[in-house]
Each structure stands twice: as structure tokens, then as C-alpha cells.
């Protein structure tokens, strides 16, 4: 940790001084691009080299990481990166000035480090909050150095340049906020209302989501586009269901009915086991965890629990099905000769009535002719017989 007031060196200069190979840095940048292909200004570049140049020009941002009612899973997820050893890179790429799990200091030294870091970087540092904040009974259920977490957060956040709430707990309360929420656990944005808070929900979220946000802030001073729940759109604008590798099974109607059945072995869709994928905004279906493909809940056969969503995770029972919001478009093809036209019953009725009427009229007319003929022939017969009597009369 530096105590000097000199302007910080750029990331590129620092890496060079620390002897981090450029290839490792480029690989890191590639990972970042894969993790956040669009929506993140810093990675919207054509090549890793360009990204590297961008990041290299950034000054190492100061990051202060606070833990509250957490399980440290979000820090763990950050550590589950290996090419290169990200812990190393993080210490060199960003300046992690306070992190209870990772820092060496403890006790009063740690307290001093926190206040020093806040003072030195006031208005510029990135505050990352992990874990929810208890609010019941003036927040006595979590204390940091004897002070309630509520107050710590308020003090530190007042000086922060950007506030990131990492994990579902910090975003909206997470597991501690599950019913009956005995501690009154809430997310950061319920406490800090006068400053923008970026939520990165997930239990845990993907580490590259955090890095993308941090680097954009470091380089450009801006934050990525957020949705109405203040989640960065580049990571949270889609539901799992729309990018799930098992979607074809869903569309074809192949579902797992029970753990361990034939379908489960074949990797069929887990919707009927209560997978919350259709209702959960997250990027897990495309960016898996631990840098091993298919290492994510659905990939290993466990239905999604919707850990990013406040209305789902730790609220809706695991095996309860969620509604599907966007119906799958039809996958059918019309046949070469499609049916065209239809026969309407009223039409048939009208036509038959008209036809019947005409036929009936013709028949009636014919009968009238016949009856007239009969009358005429009777008259003729009479006349003829009378003519036999009177041959002089003219017969018309």
C-alpha cells in the first residue's frame, strides 16, 4: 500500500514494474471481453490488444471492499479465476485498499487502514459492498469494530466515488432477508439513497461482471447502462431461459420428471423440477463459473433457483414452476399445398334455400301448365263433341 501523494502510475506501468507478462495481461483482457462482450464501453473493442491498451492507460482504481451479513461467497467467486492468478492481478491491476478477507492486517491496524484509505481517496474510490445490512433495532445485529454496519456503510459511502453492491445480499437482502427476516436485512440501495448504487445480484455473481464495471469506471469515469433495478444491462438484460443450452429440450418437450431419471441422465430440461430460469435475469447460461465449461447449476443438473431475483430466490419454493413470459415462436413449416378457403354453413344454407326455391317454383309452374292443358283438352273434347252436333261453328 502506498502512502505517498504522487499521482498513481497507470496500470500498464505498474504491471511492467511488477513483471507481469504482457501475454498474461492480454489473456485477462480476452477473458474480460468474453465475459462482457457488449454493453461495456471498455470491452467494446475489436481485439484484446485494444482492450489491453485501454486498461493499461487506466490508473489503478482504489477499491474498498466492505463485508456485512455475507458468506464471503462473492469474494470467493472473485478468487476462482486462474489464468493468470487473478489474485495477483487484482492486487496490481486494481488497488484493493481494504478487504477484510484478503488483507494481511487485522484489529486496530485494519481499522486504521480503512479510515486512511477512505481519507486518501475520498470521492474517487470504488466502494464494493458484500452482504446485506441489518436494520432492525438500530442495526445491532452486525457490528464492525463495535459500530453497527449501518453506520459504517453510511460513513464510507458518503466518501465513495462509485458504490457497487456485489451479490444478492448486498443488492436486495439475499439469504439473511428470507422470511421471517429476523434482522431486518436489506440491500445497500435501501440505505444509500442519495447516490447511485450498482447492483450485481447473484449468489454469487460472475466475477467478470464486477471487473467490467470497475474498469469502465477507472478508465472512463462512467458506469455501464443500468436497468430499472440498477443492474448493468450487459449482464442482466436476459433471462437464463432465453440462452439456456437445454432450451432445445424445452422446446421439444423433453423434461426431467425426477432427479436421476432417464431424462436427467440425458441432460433434459429441468423446468418441471422447478427451474427458475424463465424468470431469472442473469448471464450464467453463457458465462459459466470457475472457468470450466458447464459448471453452473443447470449444467450440472440442478435447476436454477433464481438467485439474482428478489421475488424468487429464498422465497419461492425450489420445486415450484414459474410462468414463461415469452412463448417460444412456432417452429413449424407450412406444407407445400396449404388449405385455402372454407365452406361456411350459412353460405350453404342460403344457396340451398335459393336452389330449392327455384326448383320448387319450376315444378309448380310445370304442374300449372299441366292442369291448364288438362282443362284445355277437356274444353277441346267438349267442343269437338259439340261440333259433331254443330259442324258449322268455327273452332279456335
Amino acid at each position, binding site marked *: 500500500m502506498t502512502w505517498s501523494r504522487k499521482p498513481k502510475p497507470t496500470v500498464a506501468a505498474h504491471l511492467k514494474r511488477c513483471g507481469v507478462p504482457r501475454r498474461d495481461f492480454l489473456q485477462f483482457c480476452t477473458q474480460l471481453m468474453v465475459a462482457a462482450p457488449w454493453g461495456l464501453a471498455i470491452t467494446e473493442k475489436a481485439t484484446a490488444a485494444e482492450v489491453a491498451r485501454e486498461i493499461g492507460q487506466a490508473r489503478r482504481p482504489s477499491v474498498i471492499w466492505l463485508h456485512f451479513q455475507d458468506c464471503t461467497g462473492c469474494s470467493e467467486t472473485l478468487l476462482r479465476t486462474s489464468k493468470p492468478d487473478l489474485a495477483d492481478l487484482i492486487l496490481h491491476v486494481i488497488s484493493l485498499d481494504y478487504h477484510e478477507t484478503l488483507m494481511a492486517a487485522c484489529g486496530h491496524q485494519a481499522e486504521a487502514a480503512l479510515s486512511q484509505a477512505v481519507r486518501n481517496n475520498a470521492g474517487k474510490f470504488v466502494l464494493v459492498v458484500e452482504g446485506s445490512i441489518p436494520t432492525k433495532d438500530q442495526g445491532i445485529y452486525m457490528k464492525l469494530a463495535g459500530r453497527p454496519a449501518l453506520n459504517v456503510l453510511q460513513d464510507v459511502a458518503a466518501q465513495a466515488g462509485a458504490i457497487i453492491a456485489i451479490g444478492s445480499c448486498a443488492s436486495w437482502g439475499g439469504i439473511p432477508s428470507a422470511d421471517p427476516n429476523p434482522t431486518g436485512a436489506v440491500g445497500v440501495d435501501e440505505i444509500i439513497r442519495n447516490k447511485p448504487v450498482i447492483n450485481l445480484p447473484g449468489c454469487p455473481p460472475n466475477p467478470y461482471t464486477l471487473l467490467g464495471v470497475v474498469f469502465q469506471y477507472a478508465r472512463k469515469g462512467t458506469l455501464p447502462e443500468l436497468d430499472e433495478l440498477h443492474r448493468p444491462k450487459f449482464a442482466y438484460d436476459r433471462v437464463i431461459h432465453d440462452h439456456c443450452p437445454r432450451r432445445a429440450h424445452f422446446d421439444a418437450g423433453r423434461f426431467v420428471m425426477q432427479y436421476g431419471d432417464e431424462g436427467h441422465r440425458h441432460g433434459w430440461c429441468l423446468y418441471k423440477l422447478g427451474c427458475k430460469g424463465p424468470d431469472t435475469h442473469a448471464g450464467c447460461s453463457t458465462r459459466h463459473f470457475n472457468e470450466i465449461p458447464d459448471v453452473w447449476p443447470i449444467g450440472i443438473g440442478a435447476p436454477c433457483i433464481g438467485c439474482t431475483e428478489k421475488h424468487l430466490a429464498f422465497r419461492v419454493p425450489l420445486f415450484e414452476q414459474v410462468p414463461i413470459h415469452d412463448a417460444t415462436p412456432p417452429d413449424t413449416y407450412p406444407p407445400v399445398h396449404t388449405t*385455402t378457403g372454407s365452406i361456411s354453413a350459412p353460405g350453404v344454407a342460403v344457396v340451398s334455400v335459393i336452389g330449392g326455391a327455384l326448383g320448387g317454383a319450376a315444378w309448380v309452374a310445370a304442374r300449372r*301448365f299441366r292442369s*291448364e292443358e288438362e282443362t284445355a283438352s277437356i274444353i277441346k273434347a267438349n267442343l269437338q263433341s259439340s261440333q259433331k252436333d254443330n259442324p258449322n261453328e268455327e273452332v279456335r
Partner: protein
Amino acid sequence: MGALSIVLSIYRELTGLGRVTGMNDIYAWGIWKTFNTMVLTGLGSGGFSIGIAAWIFFRRKLHSVMRTAVLTSFVAYSSGLIALGIDVGRPWNFYQVLMPWRWNGHSPLLEVAFCMPLYACFPLFLENTPPLFERWLYTWPKFRPILMKFVVPATRLTYPYVIALAYALPMMHQSSLGALMLLGGSRVHVLWQTPFLPLLYVWAAAFLGYSCVLGVLMVSCLAWKRPLDMSILGELARIMCWLVLSWNIFRFLDILARGQIGAAFAFDRFSLLFWLETLLLVVPSVYLLAGGHWRIPSRLFLADVLIAAGGMLYRFDPTSFAFAARPGAVYFPSAIEALIGAGAVCLALAAFIVAVKYLPILPAPVTAWHDLQEYAQAVHLKWRFKTHDFSYQNRPDLAD
């Protein structure tokens, strides 16, 4: 019924063809074009076919039914043209029929679109004016001098040319109605599709005209208790039967020549339809001719109805029953469509009845004419000119 059809037609204009009719993209022509226009104008060909017999071949007896025939034609054509007007989807562009440079000379439909209205509005209309003038002669004294001085001589001068046109034009468009389905190609079943389709159509129009006028005459006489003149009706019937039989022979020869006689015995719905048409036409004709049954009104009437049905069926088939456009496509007129079509026919009938009651149209025994003359003299109808002035003794220039 007619009023209902007018209302429904307005509705159709306001909502577009699709909602009102049962037509679809495969059967693009519903009953309005095929029935109201093709069949009804076929029935309305009495003016032309009987006229040819009466005037060109100088069958004197038939002159007395000429007026009925021409009126029937006019009324049928008008109704058919109105139905055609309702049927087209963009009638506001129809003014192009008056602009020859916009015509497509290859299209038979153009010929129909141009010739039929021309025929209905010009020669056919003019052929129908003499009864009107006659009525005005007796009932409109102020008009009489103009009538006698200008109208009648003008009519007499131009009449032969107008009538000749009234025979030339129907031959053109009735055959073009047949030519329309030539473009249907193999979708019209082989028992109907032939290069001679135009000829068959105009020939069918001819005998349909006879059968229609015959039927109309008989029904009018029945309805209004007029005596039937069997000699005239018999002449009409005989000409009609000969036309029908020769037509059938030609059609059979044509089918044989094209090698399609097998299709007639295939016993699918097309062959059954073909035999239905043929039987409806041939059996009554032979019956009437062979036993002299044309003398008996009831049998004549029934036979006439059957022949009319057969002829109508023939003209209707290539566009509908025998039009096997594509597997899976069906068509049946919707209720509104049928009502509008039937209503147009009823309007025609209504017009006919009104005209017949108002004007001297129907043939009558000579005694009626005598009575009329006596009446005229009895009420001292004064003529501006001397009596017999309109005889050719005083107007030698008109005599020859």
C-alpha cells in the same frame, strides 16, 4: 330481396371483399364473376341469338318475341354488369376502359370489360327503346311530334346498323368469356379445357338465350293468364334443341380429338359432372324433338328448365367445379355473397316485371293490337300529321 342485396353491396364496398365473400387467393373468382356475369349474360343472350334467327335468317314468326328477348337480355346484362362492378376490388381505376392506350390487347378480360358495357349501354339499350317510344306515343302528347319527326326516322335509319352491332358484339364478348379460362391451363379439367372454349361458350350462350326467353315467355303467360302461342314457342324450342344437340356433338368430337374421352369414364366427380351436363342438355332436347312433345306446354317447360340448367352448369363449371386449382383449396360462396348474387338476379326480375307491365313487350294476339287502335280512335287522339303519314307513300326516301 333486391333491396337486401343493395344494402349488402354497400356493406361489401365499405368492408372489402374478403370479409364479405368466401373468395380466397386460389379461387379468386367467386360466384359474382362466374355466375352473375358468365351464366346470367349467357341467359341474357336471347337478344342476340333469337335476333340472329329473326333478322339474319328472317324467321318472321320470331319477331313477336323479339321485344321480350331484348328486354330479358338488357335486364340480365345490367344485372350481370352490376355484379361485376361489385366484384372488382379497385373499381375507381375502371375509367381506363375508355383509354385505348392503356389497354392490354392480349387480355380477354379487357375485351369483356370493354365490349360488354358497350353492348349493354349502346346497341342493347337502343334495341329496347322502341317499346318506350310507343308508350310515349300514346301517353305523352307533347313529345309526340318530336318523336314522330326526329326520333322515329332517326331510329329507322340507324336501326339496321345498331342491330348488326348488337349481334357482332355479343359474339365477341361471349366468346371472350370462354377465352378467359384458357389461361387456366391444366387447372381447368381436361373435359372442359379446349382451345375451342370460346366457340363452345358463344354457342352455349346462344342456346341459353333461347331457353331463357322460352322460359320467361311461358312463365309470363302463366302468371298473367295470357294465351300461349305454341307455334312460336315451338319454333324457339326446335331451334334451341338443334343448337343443343349440335353443340353436344361438337363437344364430344372435340374431346375425342384431344384424346380425353377416357376422363369421361373415370367416374370421379369431374366425369360425373360432365355426364350431368350432357344428360341435362341432350335428354330433354331429344325428347322434345323426337315425339313432338314441344307442343305440350308443361313438358316443354320442364325440358326447357333442364336445358337451361345444363347450359348454365356448363358455363359455370370451368371456373368453379371443374377448376381444380390446387389440392387443399376449397371455395363456397358465403351467405352474404350468395345473397348479393341472388339479389342482383331479383333486381333484374323486378325490373323485367315493371317493364313488362309498363311497356308493350310481350307478344299478344293480333286482337289486342286491334283493340288498341280502336281505343286510340275512340278517344280522338289527335295526330299533328295526317293519319298514315308515317307510311312510306309520303316518304319515299325512307321506303327503300
